[in-house]
């Protein structure tokens, strides 16, 4: 995009996504689920990707990995990872990146583990396939991995089938599976949703621990702002298939520059001691089959000005790492 680059940008981030567009061609028309996504993620950095359901968070992850399901396809844009252009890699090279370079933990670990194979078998398979380990070495390493995610009795878990484990244990196995080949980037898609708060906190702590231990870059996809606040140094807010605001978590949360971010923050419960009315965001997200040429949020936006109906806002820099796709200077936002 034409926006000026931040002055202190790294020369080459681990992952950079430029203007990524993904479409689904259906009989009912073309759905533009990603309408130009821009993301940068440095080595060892944690980025939270938030947005409501259907905003394209998971599709961003799948597009990065080149796993957009039929009938979708990536229309344009660039995905660079560790110096490689992932969209230009051949099948085999891309397979090497998946699992070894970028690994993903999916929304439902219980269904992402193969129900007819033991947990140990599934981890061992990756070790043998990617790292060319022998049987004995992969077995030992499997137990080591299961231990590293703090599963009690790793020998037993290795022999168990996914349905024999609890939801929290399944997530731990899924994390162990994703980290088995020491990837540089972990994409965690709703890694903690559907768990009760205690287990959720444990999983977040585990991810933080492993992130620090392996200097892992993490793309943390969630709809839960509290999770982002806890885990990510930077946050990107997604709406209607694009990033509308990104910046350091503390800044974005304290002074959101995009009306959507602001609305999101107001639509969640406050801290324990300060009960307040939740403010739902009025209206619905635009139909991805028919994205407007102007700002996609304008119909729901309380700060709308005339320009919003005519032009699509480009990213506007508000700080060295903070930009927002909005024409308006929100009251309270730091310029």
């Amino acid at each position, binding site marked *: 995009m034409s926006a000026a680059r931040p002055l202190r940008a790294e020369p080459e981030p681990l992952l950079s996504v430029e203007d990524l567009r993904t479409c689904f061609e259906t009989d009912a028309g073309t759905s533009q689920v990603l309408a130009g996504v821009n993301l940068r993620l440095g080595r060892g950095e944690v980025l939270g990707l938030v947005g409501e359901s259907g905003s394209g968070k998971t599709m961003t992850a*799948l597009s990065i*990995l080149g*796993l957009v*399901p*039929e009938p979708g396809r990536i229309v344009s844009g660039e995905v660079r990872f560790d110096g490689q252009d992932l969209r230009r890699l051949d099948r085999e090279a891309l*397979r*090497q*990146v*998946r*699992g*070894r370079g970028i*690994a*993903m933990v*999916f*929304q*439902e670990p219980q*269904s*992402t*583990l*193969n*129900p*007819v*194979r033991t947990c140990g078998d599934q981890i061992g*398979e*990756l070790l043998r*396939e*990617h790292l060319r380990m022998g049987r004995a070495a992969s077995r030992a390493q499997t137990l080591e991995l299961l231990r590293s995610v703090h599963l009690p009795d790793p020998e037993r878990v290795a022999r168990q089938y996914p349905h024999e484990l609890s939801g929290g244990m399944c997530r731990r196995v899924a994390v162990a*599976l*994703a980290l088995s*080949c020491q990837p540089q980037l972990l994409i965690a898609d709703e890694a903690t949703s559907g768990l009760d708060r205690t287990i959720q906190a444990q999983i977040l702590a585990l991810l933080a621990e492993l992130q620090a231990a392996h200097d892992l870059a993490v793309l943390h996809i969630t709809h839960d702002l509290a999770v982002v606040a806890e885990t990510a140094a930077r946050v990107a807010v997604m709406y209607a298939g694009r990033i509308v605001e990104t910046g350091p978590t503390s800044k974005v949360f304290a002074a959101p520059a995009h009306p959507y971010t602001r609305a999101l923050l107001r639509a969640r419960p406050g801290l324990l001691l300060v009960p307040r009315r939740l403010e739902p965001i009025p209206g619905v997200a635009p139909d991805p089959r028919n994205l407007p040429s102007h700002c996609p949020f304008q119909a729901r936006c309380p700060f709308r000005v005339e320009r919003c109906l005519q032009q699509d806002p480009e990213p506007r820099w508000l700080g060295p790492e903070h930009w927002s796709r909005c024409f308006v200077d929100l009251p309270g936002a730091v310029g």
Partner: protein
Amino acid sequence: MSFRRFTAHRAAVAGAVVVGLLWLLALLAPWLAPYDPAGFTRMGLVPPGSEHWLGTDAIGRDVFSRLLFGARLSLGVAMLAVLVAVSIGTAVGLVAGFAGGVVDTALMRGVDLLLAFPRLFLALLAIALWGPSIWLLTLVLGLTGWMSTARLVRTQVLSLREQDFVTAGRALGVPTPRLLLRHVLPHCTAPLLVAATLMVGNTILAESALSFLGLGVQVPGASWGAMLNEARGEWRSAWWLATFPGLLITLTVLAHNLVGDGLRDLLDPRLPVGPERSTSP
């Protein structure tokens, strides 16, 4: 508990017992048969009695002994043919279902094309070209029987490939052949088992038909169909010659179908258990 589901299906249990018994008889034929199945014992056409339990045929061979050895041929040929059919069908179904698109269309239209030919016609053609033999018979039955398996596996794979664990496997860089064989295929084993069991019954029937037409097992071999063929001339004067092989074919096919049906109930917990469900083959 799943075993109890199966035993609740009485017809299936009966079928399983019969199938087990038949296989046992076939395996133990050399020790159980009172006479040499190809040996001429005495004058021909002795009715069933204490010396020859099921009588003898026109040239004095003991029908009971021939039936026992016939079981080896009929069951063996059927089993091998089903193995061939299931292997080919599974491979085609896996590839078609997983690849999708042009590959899928091409393979499935090929299957439609093959299904358009009557199975016996293809078998007759092959036998007319290369002459009858047990191995050719087995091969032909296998090569003409895989299409239904291909369709079955393809349908399974079509739904399986949308499952999260398949996407997850790809996201973690599991190579496609491995994904197919180690992640997808194991989920097809239950329907495959059912299909294969039902197919054994059908294949025995097809083998009997071909042998009856004189195109399958050749003398002095004695498959049940071949015995029926030999009995053609005598069936008015010697009822036992056609009756016992015929009964055995019916019983075997029925038993396999009952077991297949029982397995289907067992492996598909959504269906109700037991006699309230029809068990027609």
